[in-house]
């Protein structure tokens, strides 16, 4: 496939997964994106994007042990693969190169 470009949402999700480290799962990824980008993404979109990333081999799923509290449940955790890490880096670099020299106005 050669170069693998990421869509915006894919970039956000991969970034959030990277940032969350061992604690990345659907709801935490959504919150992380909201915190970092101020975008309120629908949970369904996060899942759909995770599914696509999984198909591309950028993330893998892991079902965790139940959380150690009463009634705690197991979670489907998300981990970046090395391909995912490379794709994320490539895309972030591209964004940086694009942003260089652009007048970006004050952040709202």
């Amino acid at each position, binding site marked *: 496939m050669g170069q693998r470009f990421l869509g915006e949402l894919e970039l956000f999700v991969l970034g959030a997964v990277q940032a969350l480290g061992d604690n990345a799962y*659907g709801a935490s990824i959504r919150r992380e994106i909201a915190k970092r980008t101020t975008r309120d993404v*629908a*949970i*369904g*979109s996060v*899942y*759909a*994007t995770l*599914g696509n990333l999984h198909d591309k081999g950028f993330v893998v799923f892991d079902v965790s042990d139940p959380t150690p509290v009463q009634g705690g449940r197991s*979670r489907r955790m998300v981990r970046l693969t090395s391909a995912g890490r490379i794709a994320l880096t490539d895309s972030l670099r591209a964004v940086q190169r694009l942003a260089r020299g652009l007048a970006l106005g004050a952040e709202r």
Partner: protein
Amino acid sequence: MSQPPVRPPRLAEWIIRSVAPPNDVRWLLQDFAEELGERAASQSSAASLRWYWSQTIRSIVPLLRRRLTTLITSHRGEHMWNDLAQDLRFAVRLSARTPLTTVVVIATLVLGLGATTSVFSVVDAVLIRPLPFAASTRTVQLFGVLRDGTDISSTAYPDLLDVRATSHAIERLGIGQQVQMSLEHGGEASRIEAVQIDSDFVRVLDLRAGIGRMFDAESFAMSGPEQVVLSHGFWMREFGGDRSIVGKTITLDGQASTVIGVLEERPFVYPQVSPDIIQPLRIRPASLFARRGVMWATAVARARPGLSTEDVSRDVAAIAHRLEIEYPQSNKGIGMHVKPLRDAVVGDIGSMLGLLTAAVASVLLIASLNVGNLLLARATARAREFAVRVAIGGSPWRVRRQVLAEAFLLAALGGALGLALAPLLTRTLLSLYPGELPRAAEIHVGIRALLGALAGILASSILASLPAMRQATSARPGLDLRATAGAGESSQSRRFGRFVFGAQIAASLTMVFVAGLLVRSLKETNRIRPGFEPSRLLTFMAAPPRGRETSPQAYYQRLDDALARIPGVTAVATAWHIPFGSNWHGDVFIREDKGDRGPANTQTNVDAIAPGFERTIGARIIAGRAFTAADNDSLGPPVALINETLATKAFPGEDPVGKEIAFNAVPHRRIVGVIADMKDGSLVDPAPSMLYLPVEQYKQEYARRDRYVIMRSSRDPATLMAEARLVVRAVDESVPLTDVRTMDDRLAAAAAAFRFRALLLGGLSTLAWLLALVGVYGIVAETVNRQTREIGIRLALGMTPGGVQRTVLAASLRTAVIGVVVGLAVSVAIAPSLRSMLYGVAARDMSLLIAATLAVFAAAAAAAFIPARRASRVDPIIALRSD
């Protein structure tokens, strides 16, 4: 936290579950719930719920899109088509392993889909597709209508000219008529069908010449040259498609006409849809054709854009009303209305085709249910296999697709064969159809029928595989892996079995009942007495020779004498029109004793007969006398006969014999007798009113000079045909003999619509009945198979074999009763809509309802009996050891 936890809304959860990819559902709902809980801790519960709902709604589209992607590329990354190919290969292997089932399934679908496709082709061509010319949906036919509501398909020429001149709703109005002519070609004379039309008719129907040209202004001029345009079919038939015919002359009715063109291959002409030739219509102002009250013309009109048929009808009725006031002498009691041209062409064939479609659809439904049940049986038998597949990680979707692939494979095979069969079935259907099916030339199994068949294949395969799919994916690995064959049946497959059983009983009962109605109607029509003696009568039409010295009178006299000398012939007579023949005439007369103050002009059919006609045909004179040879004199005192119907209509409560009427521009015509009614045109309708004149006394310039000849003989009239032909040729070899048929044939043709319906529905309902029989047998047999173990236990516990048999039978018959009740309800509900096709039988005939119920119920009982008997013979030892 004192606050009770906020529960996620059930509906929202259900939505998420339905749209999300199955693998994600659990985690998704968990995440939704987690965040809801967090929000509920810091917000009002209403705000949390609002959040939940907005999240749900915003998630629908991305989740669905994702689900679609997973469908196309399975999560292992394999391509869907690889899986599909694998499924299909597996389906082929599986089908090959059970050849009998496979053949039954395919044969069922071939018949079902083939019949559906061919019936759809006919319905599409006749009923659905618009007529093949521009603005055809705005085109209507004008009808004359009598005060008593009787339609007269023709109208008077001057009335039409008035409509053309004054109507606000009509854009263009064409006038025409259908006539028969004789063509002399290559030394032989033949009868041909001609349509004479005016220039607007050409434009309304958008007629164009494929070769040569259409008529121009000169063609329609009163003293213009004699010109003719050939139809494509006639040109191919008669002239072998010779292009050089254009510009040459042919002889029509003794007159030379120049062929100026040939119509396009598939034009639409009216009132004769496929005439041999068309000619310009020329009406001399002084002729009878131009008289008010003489109704002969067929009119087609195009409505102005945006106006409906009703608008045109109102407009035309108003004009007719004005004409009634303006010309009471000729127009009193005569109205006008319009019908969409397509309805006029198609006639009451619509209800027939509707019935046929419903019947074929029922057969396809019963067939699909049978196939569905067979597939379900297969799926049930493989419950363990499916359970294993799901248990070791196979996706339920994959299993469902497998089942669908099997159904589709069978349906595709059945469909392909059915489609191959469709043209043949269509041709058979058309050849069975009595007379000419309207628009028959437009019928072909085309792309739309193909699409229809594909839709049928898809629908039937999905319908057939639905229950099996549910069965397959309801696999509960724990249960089904533990379950052993014969330990019991799933409630789902049992429910579906009962549904199929009941539905088949209901559908076949309805069909048997409808077929019964139609067969009974046919039997009743065969019993109708037509009012004359139809057996041993040979009838044909002979036109007198043109352009020769002999008068028609002299010609027919010579012909009569010559025919009477044929051995076995006991009587010969001639007439313009005979019952169940063509050559109709209609006109009006005035009762002279009532004068102008009397009732409106009486409209009646008119026949001109030679003396001895009523004796030859076997009709009774019920009052007065018949015509004598002395009456048949154009210079003698004018006389007439009327039939009973006309007597009651025009002379209610009076003795018509001796009364005088003015008719045919001749006053003081004395009615000398009343003749018994003869059925005409239709066996089931009442006899039309008839006025008979001695043939020599009926002079009409627009009337045809050719007559029917009827011969009664002491031997089979069919054997007379060849001799009659020889005699006609010997008398004058230029005279073509047409419409040669025995009277029995004519009556049979009149009942043909009944025979066609009875035959077709009889056949289809027998098919449905047989399929239902097979279906019921299959269901009960299968139930017994699955209950073998249970039956074994019961027997071991002391139940008698008879008891087992009764139990199985009773269970089947309970279901059959439900089917019968539904079938009876449907029958009673649809029966009234069949009324127009019935004769001599009530639509809700009780004896037929009972007979149909018995036929279906007995079949169900018989089909259930065999497996029930087998159940009673189960050996408990073997049954319990069978695991």
